[in-house]
């Protein structure tokens, strides 16, 4: 049968908000689901309930035909019998054990030779072979993350749960490890749920995403679809970037990267680490609209298209366009009136190269 994770859970906090979350995740297509939302939205509550570390007050959790939790029937499968790999925000390595023993910690039922072989295999895969004899206190943040990942993967879990896997790192290490983490998750073949409040992380790591706001799940779908078409104003505010286009690197020139999104080419500043696939992100308020292609400007990107819809938001107007790729621009009401921005109107969208933010994707 198809592997799926479904949950519908309620957890109340004595002097805090109530988290009510329900979702259904098919785990076979696309390995990584991002659980995205601002801090305090209830993401970690959901993750802890999935792991079996906390017991929800009501509801059900089912995984691949097994019932992990059923509040009405009193079913609760403890974390030991869920076969789930956990990665904690600060990695929670056992400080009294060397790296090799940390990785082997969950392999108690294997024989000594098998255990050592498994540790060696994971150490090679995560390139931490030379660290096996060290203590966690002697490792850098990035090394700790790799060791924690190896430890979680060692017992061959059926599901990986990662809580803010990059937030304990400093910014340069984070950028470096994002792509690596994505590759590791993908090559492991284990479906993963990643909790994050960081847009770039969500875009770089996720195939699908679930948006949580104020203790409830507001939207679920493919990552760029959620970014491009938020279900409501709340989600739009949380995800922040209106235009997220799937793109491929076309060429590089003069420190800039030229990517191809559908039929159009976009010039952007090269973020580094870009191999082939990327998301090109443009905030709606960064797009300048013109009535028709005219005199040359300093903007590197000029996309011709046609208005397909508009929504008035107080003093601003949100204009949806088809420029070969769907684009959303945010302009003032006065500009919209002057240009006559109604469906069917031909327009040109100008975007400066630095406003096109590329998030590299691997795989």
């Amino acid at each position, binding site marked *: 049968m198809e592997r799926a994770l479904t949950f519908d859970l309620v957890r109340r906090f004595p002097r805090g908000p109530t988290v009510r979350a329900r979702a259904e995740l098919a785990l076979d297509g696309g390995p990584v689901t991002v659980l995205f939302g601002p801090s305090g939205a209830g993401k970690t509550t959901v993750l802890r309930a999935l792991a079996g*570390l906390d017991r929800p007050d009501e509801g059900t959790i089912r995984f691949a035909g097994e019932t992990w939790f059923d509040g009405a029937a009193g079913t609760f499968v403890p974390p030991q019998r869920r076969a789930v790999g956990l990665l904690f925000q600060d990695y*929670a390595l*056992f*400080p009294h054990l060397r790296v090799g023993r940390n990785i082997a910690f969950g392999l108690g039922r294997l024989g000594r030779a098998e255990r050592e072989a498994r540790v060696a295999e994971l150490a090679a895969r995560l390139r931490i072979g030379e660290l096996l004899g060290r203590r966690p206190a002697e490792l850098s943040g990035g090394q700790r993350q790799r060791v924690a990942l190896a*430890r979680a993967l060692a017992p061959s879990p059926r599901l990986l749960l990662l809580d803010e896997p990059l937030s304990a790192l400093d910014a340069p290490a984070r950028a470096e490890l994002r792509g690596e983490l994505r590759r590791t998750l993908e090559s492991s073949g284990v479906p993963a749920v990643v909790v994050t409040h960081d847009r770039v992380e969500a875009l770089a790591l996720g195939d699908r995403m679930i948006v949580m706001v104020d203790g409830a799940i507001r939207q679920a779908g493919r990552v760029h679809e959620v970014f491009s078409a938020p279900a409501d104003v709340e989600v739009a505010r949380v995800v922040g970037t209106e235009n997220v286009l799937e793109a491929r690197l076309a060429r590089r020139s003069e420190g800039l990267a030229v990517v191809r999104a559908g039929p159009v080419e976009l010039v952007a500043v090269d973020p580094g680490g870009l191999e082939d696939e990327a998301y090109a992100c443009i905030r709606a308020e960064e797009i300048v609209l013109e009535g028709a292609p005219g005199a040359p400007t300093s903007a590197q990107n000029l996309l011709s298209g046609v208005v397909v819809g508009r929504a008035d938001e107080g003093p601003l107007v949100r204009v949806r366009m088809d420029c070969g790729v769907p684009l959303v621009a945010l302009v003032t009401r006065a500009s919209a009136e002057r240009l006559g921005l109604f469906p069917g109107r031909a327009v040109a969208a100008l975007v400066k190269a630095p406003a096109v933010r590329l998030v590299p994707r691997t795989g």
Partner: protein
Amino acid sequence: MDEAALRLSLVLATLTTLLLLVLGLPLAHWLATSRLRWKFLVEAVVALPLVLPPTVLGFYLLFGLGPRSPLGRAWEAVVGHRFPFSFEGLVIASVLYSMPFAVQPFATAISAVDRRLVEASHGLGVSPLGTFFRVTLPLSWNGILAGAVLTFAHTLGEFGVVLMVGGNIAGETRTLSIAIFDHVEALEYGAANRTSALLLGLSFGVLVLVYALQRRPFFRWNER
């Protein structure tokens, strides 16, 4: 020198410490990790011997386990002799009397272990008992050792409970502190001084060991 009394005190202190490790560790673990609302009642009961006069504890033990009570008759049927004025009775009384000196440092040490490490172990499929021996104990051993040493020292020096429950039977219930009392009553100040000096040296040595083993303070009230 009261060799019999010294031997008896050492055996009593060792047995009490071992029993409190076996009984006190699960209790301390429960106190450190339970989120039950009524936990404070158990905490209060455990701390009771700290404030209660030893005579009160001794009196109720005699009352509850004496030959006239049902529990006392059951004790006699199982052990073969009466509870009061026996070595076994002394062990039971010492365990109860030293309970807070073991359980409180144990609980403090266990609660200082990062909960996420315990959760990580559970997530890796290791049972709660396995997690206790592979994660909690290795990370809290110095606090637990401190509690054990303190229990040993405290039992070595107890007097009131021993006198109430055990009386003063040479080789059976006559401990070092009782021996000192006897010497003073008999005006044998030289003998009392030798035994007292021994107890003083022993107690001081034990406390030096505790504080040397312990890098951080193990009393809660020393923590900032």
